[in-house]
């Protein structure tokens, strides 16, 4: 992996394509969960990899390449959502929750399917914070930096997400 990254950093597009093949699934999963829409998730995934290519020179290897790439993807989704909100002045909602459920079904039936559906049905703010914290493993401070939300606000969103999920899953 380090060799692929080094080659890609020196401008080797074949090496970058190999990195893409390794990471596209996790980046797409993240974009799909955050956006709730398969076609948008595809666009966000492409934008994230193009941006990663342009920023490869800034990757120092201090963090895992996956974390670095996911952070770029999260920022891409957020910038797109902010722009969309400004432009249309409307609340972002999941357009196709079934797409997430379909993906989960392939991996493990039952718990995952129910949970993916329940997450997809969360209000946008609560869903975002829950995915970043519980699925992606970001800490509160990191989520605050990414989303621009105060830590107190995102804790409230996380609490709301957990309550709604437990209700939806009948726990």
């Amino acid at each position: 992996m380090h060799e692929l990254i080094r080659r890609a950093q020196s401008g080797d597009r074949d090496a970058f394509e190999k990195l893409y093949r390794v990471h596209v699934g996790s980046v797409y999963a993240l974009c799909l969960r955050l956006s709730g829409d398969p076609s948008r998730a595809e666009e966000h995934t492409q934008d994230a990899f193009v941006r990663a290519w342009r920023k490869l020179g800034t990757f120092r290897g201090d963090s895992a390449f996956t974390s670095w790439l996911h952070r770029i993807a999260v920022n891409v989704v957020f910038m797109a959502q902010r722009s969309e909100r400004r432009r249309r002045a409307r609340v972002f909602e999941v357009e196709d929750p079934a797409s997430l459920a379909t993906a989960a079904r392939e991996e493990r039936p039952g718990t995952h399917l129910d949970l993916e559906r329940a997450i997809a049905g969360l209000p946008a703010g609560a869903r975002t914070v829950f995915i970043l914290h519980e699925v992606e493993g970001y800490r509160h401070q990191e989520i605050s930096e990414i989303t621009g939300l105060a830590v107190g606000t995102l804790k409230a969103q996380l609490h709301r997400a957990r309550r709604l999920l437990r209700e939806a899953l009948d726990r």
Partner: protein
Amino acid sequence: MNHQDFKSKLDDYVDGELTDAVREVVESHLQTCAECRREVEELVELGRDAAELPRAIEPQRDLWPEIGERIARPALVDRSLWPLRYPLAAAAVLLIAVSSATTAIVVYRLGAGRTSGGGPPSSTSADWLVAELPYTQAAEELRATLEENRQRLAPETIARIEANLEVIDQAIGETREALQADPADANLRRMLWSAHQAKIDVLQGVNRLIAST
């Protein structure tokens, strides 16, 4: 702390966000409170299930061809301004149209021995100034986004955007001047709105561009 106080701390307890002293108090409460104990178990289970969700979901199609094409383009000929192609083209056409029109108006008036078309701006001119407000406010808001994200765009891109916004501002300025002289001219009003719309289109294109970088 009463029961509700303890309940309000359970998220932080599960997330490991409590100080040692508070955590010990909460743990002491958990030993005696079945309801809070059950809630903690549910929160832990939910977090574990979420962490075990599939890390990868393959897209329905291969996304690489478009990525490969985009990264293959040299920076200077990158289609980074592609989302702006129509607004920029409109801006160029607009400048030509406004310049020609205002020149024609001035020449016509000089030839006809007219000056300003009727003295100082009347209340009619105040009307179109007020009508401009939504455009100028929208442009300011979009411009603020551009300013916040300047560092995300290539210097060449910024230079081209600024040059085109300057063109449009020039068009707006020239049309305003002409309207000062003749506030009732419907063609000039239409040109002013077109210029404002062109500016909004360019700035919206910039916003989309920022979102895609």
